[in-house]
């Protein structure tokens, strides 16, 4: 399967793929896309913190009003003048009478909203909010904490608790994550590895999708241009198929290595320093593992994409029939991303060692938790096994497909090809 003819095909594929403008553009564009996404996110967050609001807080008692005033005076959006809050004390009855007169301001959005704090908050923490937009969750998230603190202050007032105790009671619960590993050190976990898990899933997904589509198109083109018949007068279909696949796989691997290069530099040198809460806990060995696992899985995927290309005469027919293969790429991407919530969940664990899925899910999981060595080995073995199972079928269909043309065959017919003697 691997000889001088295969090598000639590999060389041609590399010359055609690597030394091209589209390869260079693609290689540079993807990291830029990532940087762009990060900037958009930062922008959205800062935009959100810059929103202004004008609120009226109306409490039923003076004590509540004072407490609110005290808490909100230290509230950053108020300090930065993004939030303007006025305070009033009145009974529920008076408030109900006055509400119609404030309607105009609310509808014209001169006033963002009115928070009514009834006396009953001392037993049930339920407040009323009047606004044109009464489901303003981003506003609630912001003002919940100072309001809660104000209520706690009032509630414990005169109950012989020190300020320290009150401030303890009003604190929210926070977690700091520590990653347990086989090694001796217990390290505090930042957000870096969550980002890394996402980056692994996404890069692997993009690369599978692009290199798969490219090889499929290239097979269709060879078939359409009838080059394949000239090629087969010099070599057999196995040599041609493996040459094309190896050529494409090397191209994709080189691209992936370029994408992961900054990561390797970060962890092996001190050239680029990350903020401590973005520190990465990943080893060079793991990155090489990602590349190796990717390479093996990629070869299987490329075999399937080449097979689909050989069945059809044009891109449209192929695109409309390729969905089963696309599912094999998209489902693992979803598993990889949703695993961020619970990396040790059953689905993530199984998928990281499952045929096809392990290519994306294992790297994503590895970035989040400490994966035992045996699971790394199982994933590789499963990938190799899948490859050896897939190729006899894919190779046979490819051999028959590339020489036939005409009517679009049904999947039933394609299965019949497996019985042909060619």
């Amino acid at each position: 399967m691997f000889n001088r003819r295969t090598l000639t095909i590999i060389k041609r594929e590399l010359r055609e793929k690597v030394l091209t403008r589209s390869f260079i553009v693609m290689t540079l564009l993807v990291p830029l896309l990532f940087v762009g996404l990060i900037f958009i996110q930062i922008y959205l967050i800062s935009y959100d913190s810059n929103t202004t609001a004008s609120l009226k807080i109306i409490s039923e008692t003076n004590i509540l009003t004072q407490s609110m005033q005290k808490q909100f005076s230290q509230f950053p959006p108020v300090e930065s003048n993004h939030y303007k809050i006025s305070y009033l004390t009145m009974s529920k009855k008076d408030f109900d009478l006055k509400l119609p007169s404030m309607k105009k301001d609310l509808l014209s959005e001169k006033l963002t909203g009115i928070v009514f704090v009834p006396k009953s908050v001392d037993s049930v923490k339920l407040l009323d909010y009047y606004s044109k937009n009464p489901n303003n969750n981003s506003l609630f998230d912001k003002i919940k904490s100072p309001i809660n603190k104000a209520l706690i202050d009032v509630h414990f007032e005169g109950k012989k608790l020190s300020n320290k105790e009150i401030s303890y009671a009003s604190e929210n619960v926070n977690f700091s994550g520590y990653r347990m590993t086989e090694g001796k050190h217990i390290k505090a976990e930042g957000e870096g590895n969550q980002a890394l898990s996402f980056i692994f899933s996404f890069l692997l997904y993009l690369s599978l999708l692009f290199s798969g589509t490219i090889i499929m198109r290239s097979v269709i083109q060879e078939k359409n241009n009838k080059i394949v018949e000239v090629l087969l007068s010099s070599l057999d279909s196995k040599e041609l198929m493996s040459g094309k696949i190896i050529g494409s796989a090397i191209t994709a691997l080189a691209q992936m290595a370029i994408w992961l290069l900054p990561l390797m530099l970060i962890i092996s040198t001190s050239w680029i320093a990350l903020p401590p809460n973005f520190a990465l806990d990943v080893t060079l060995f793991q990155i090489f593992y990602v590349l190796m696992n990717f390479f093996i899985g990629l070869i299987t995927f490329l075999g399937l994409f080449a097979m689909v290309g050989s069945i059809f005469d044009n891109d449209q027919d192929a695109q409309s029939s390729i969905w089963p293969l696309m599912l094999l790429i998209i489902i693992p991407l979803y598993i990889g991303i949703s695993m961020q919530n619970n990396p040790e969940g059953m689905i993530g664990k199984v998928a990281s060692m499952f045929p096809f899925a392990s290519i994306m899910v294992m790297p994503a999981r590895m970035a989040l938790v400490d994966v035992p060595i045996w699971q790394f080995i199982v994933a590789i073995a499963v990938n190799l096994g899948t490859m050896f199972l897939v190729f006899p079928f894919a190779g046979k269909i490819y051999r028959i497909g590339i020489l036939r043309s005409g009517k679009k065959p049904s999947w039933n017919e394609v299965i019949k090809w497996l019985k042909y003697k060619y």
Partner: protein
Amino acid sequence: MYALKVQNVTKTFGNLRAVDDVSFSIPEGSIFGLIGRNGAGKTTTIRMMMNIYLPDSGEIVLQGSKIGQEFKDMVGYLPEERGLYRKMKVLETLLFFSELKGKKGKGLEKRANELLEKFQLIDRRNSKVEDLSKGNQQKIQFIATILHEPEFIILDEPFSGLDPINTNLLKEIILDLKKQGKVIIFSTHLMDFAEKMCDHIAMIDKGKIIMNGSLPEIKSKYSQRNVSINYSGDISFLKGNPIIEKIADYGNSTGIKVKEPQDVQQLLKILVNNNISISKFNANEITLQEIFIELAGDEIVTNTYSEVKHV
């Protein structure tokens, strides 16, 4: 001495028996024509000869042993539908196809340049294939077929799409290759060309070989009692004449078969007596076209002639 033998080869696709128990032998140093109409099984047979398809039964034998990869290295194949990588440069393309056959190096590049010179394409050697005209692409394909100096050259409809000047150029080169002792295998539905160029012929129809042998042998076998004439006037009076067995109109000539060899002179006499103006009268002459129609039926006549005229 036979260079290549095709022995009882059969190939079916689903319910279609594309090639049915086909046998023929290709002598060394000959130009061999595999002829038949479109869809007769020529390309399938050639694909089996190239080891692209495996026959269901039968085998292809090269100098005593079954063909394999070593045969592929000895063959240059010009398929019916040309195929080149459009984005590749001309010289790169030529060297790529030769490298697949195991030939590379400085000498090869020199030979590629010589052939490009011969076909007046030397100034295009660094152009992309897609920038060349269709005719020029075809010349490139032909150069790619012979660049690695193959022993066997298989040409599937080599003249289609070439202008008369290039057709002649190609013919000269083919005859030159023959002189060098190469075996040239033609597949064509153009009987005219096959007749002018081939030494040996195998006719295939509906997957079966209906006739094969050397061209002179075949002709002498089928030409007895046959007269080929060109004339002006009306010869319908010949119908029903006791000496006439069959009259067939081939468009630019008419074939008449008489019942006994001595009737040929009688026929000429009748024609002259009936004031038919005769511009050609060939006794014991038959064209390949006529033989083919006699053997395979005449549904091919108009089709083939109109295609012949294009060339």
